[in-house]
């Protein structure tokens, strides 16, 4: 019986397709990582392992541009992720612990709006908006745009987590004369921490990685890492771009991995 059951569930070739899928997903990233260590000046020939392109990123002719861009990117990502995670945490509490209310569907639609509107449309709309109110483009416009579109990315893991936490803990606290504010800060927030950290990290990556919206709302001369990379790539892929890409790729993978393990952690037990 067990073997027939197994048989019914398995289709020939599905495993092969899955493996093919993983190869397609990872091959470009692996190849770029490998070639970022290439000692050769040319992209095509392999001349052994070296760190020269990493050194080039930090001290080469373009290093000041990349340093400035990296600084902007990280400042924006940290602030945008912090603000959007705070907003998302409050919103998730209102949505998940706020009972039934008329504007619930509308609120959820509003929160997921940045996911539904194509990114290029958000980019155009944001540029036009800042232009129409006479707001000069620069770091501030990038930051505001990032805060807005990071909200759903922070909201989803947070609200998912909150739905998994029974409110009996908060009820118990209130039975013991804790105020609602205390029940929130002393009980719910600590229980929510894995979801909040996970949401923060996802928002951080989304901000760090954004190109399209940043490219529209950044002022002249202000660059983030993705826009600086795009500018360089337009003149052809160079080995130093592969080194910088590999580093950025590493940051994303580490962050997502942390987010994955943190969100799996169950601290209600």
């Amino acid at each position: 019986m067990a073997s027939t059951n197994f048989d019914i569930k398995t289709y020939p070739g599905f495993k092969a397709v899955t493996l093919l899928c993983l190869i397609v997903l990872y091959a470009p990233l692996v190849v770029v990582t490998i070639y970022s260590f290439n000692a050769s000046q040319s992209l095509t020939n392999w001349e052994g392992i070296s760190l020269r392109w990493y050194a080039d990123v930090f001290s080469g002719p373009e290093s000041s541009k990349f340093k400035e861009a990296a600084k902007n990117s990280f400042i924006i990502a940290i602030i945008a992720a912090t603000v959007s995670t705070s907003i998302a945490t409050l919103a998730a509490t209102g949505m998940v612990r706020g009972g039934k209310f008329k504007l619930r569907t509308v609120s959820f639609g509003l929160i997921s709006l940045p996911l539904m509107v194509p990114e290029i449309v958000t980019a155009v709309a944001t540029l036009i908006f800042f232009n129409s109110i006479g707001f000069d483009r620069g770091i501030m416009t990038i930051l505001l745009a990032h805060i807005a579109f990071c909200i759903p990315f922070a909201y989803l893991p947070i609200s998912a987590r909150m739905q998994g936490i029974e409110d009996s803990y908060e009820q118990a606290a209130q039975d013991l004369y804790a105020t609602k504010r205390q029940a929130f800060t002393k009980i719910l927030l600590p229980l929510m921490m894995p979801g909040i950290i996970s949401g923060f990290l996802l928002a951080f990556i989304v901000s760090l990685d954004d190109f399209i919206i940043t490219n529209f709302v950044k002022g002249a001369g202000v660059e983030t890492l993705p826009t600086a990379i795009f500018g360089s790539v337009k003149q052809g892929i160079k080995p130093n771009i592969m080194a910088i890409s590999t580093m950025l790729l590493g940051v994303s993978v580490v962050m997502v991995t942390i987010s994955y393990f943190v969100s799996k952690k169950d601290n209600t037990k």
Partner: protein
Amino acid sequence: MAAGAASGGSATTDTYKEARTWLLLPAWVTLCILILAPVLMMLVYSFLTKEFRGGVIWEFSLAAYDQFFFDRGLFGDDPPKIEWTYIAIFWRSIWQAGAATLLSLVIGFPTAYFIATRAENMRPVWVFLITIPYWVNLLIRTVSMKFLLRDQGPLNDFLINIGLIDSPLHIVNTNFAVQLGLFYSYLPFMVLPIYAAVERYNFNLSEAAADLYASKWTTLRRILLPAVKPGVIAGCILVFVPSMGSFLAPDLLGGAKNFMIGSLIEEQFKGNAGNWPFGAAASMILLTMVLIILMIFARQQAKAEKSGG
């Protein structure tokens, strides 16, 4: 959107009912000011007069939409004919996004199915493996893809070295490269909803079909597919919608011949064409198309839920 099901969920309580408005206010304000108001302002701009070198003059005009749909000759006084240039660009975007969606479905469905039929504790690991690349910068992924596929790139080197081909395949700057790039950009959006649907599927149904002498593929087609259809449709929409408006894959992998909506819009704000109302109008048309697709989808999902799906 895929997570909509998760948040519409059951476990809502009213512990903080009194504070609800204050809790939601920051999100409402931020999103209304920074997303909703901009989209409305974009709608307004699409009906304004263009200022050369970017920007607008505050004068009502239908010129942007007129330019999109009608050709009035060089001096604008010929009888209007349908202008096919921009419609063709939209059509190409739809076609490319459709091809990328199909490619994602053909690869994504078996993958999602395979993952959903693994041991329960292994499924999250597989899902994680599929989603990691999604979190890597889209620009870097697209550049990596271009590097891999180049005429002198590692893929062609590899194929020549193992003797499969004699001269390099020209993949970059073709339609196929764009489709591959879009597939690569959005594949997890296809896999995740299908995975979720297959995971909920009751395999006793397949077993019953097998007991009645249905072949495996008949069972797949007649029993499993109808049951997981909402997941498949969700996956297709989640790949199709962002593909249609994408900018990086067509720009970096497609070259000038494979212009898509995203590039057309970008050019209005960055390049020398610089026609803001026209860019706003093209964005509005794109947004309208996307919202129509999403509305049809939402209605179908609601219907499926009502019929006990």
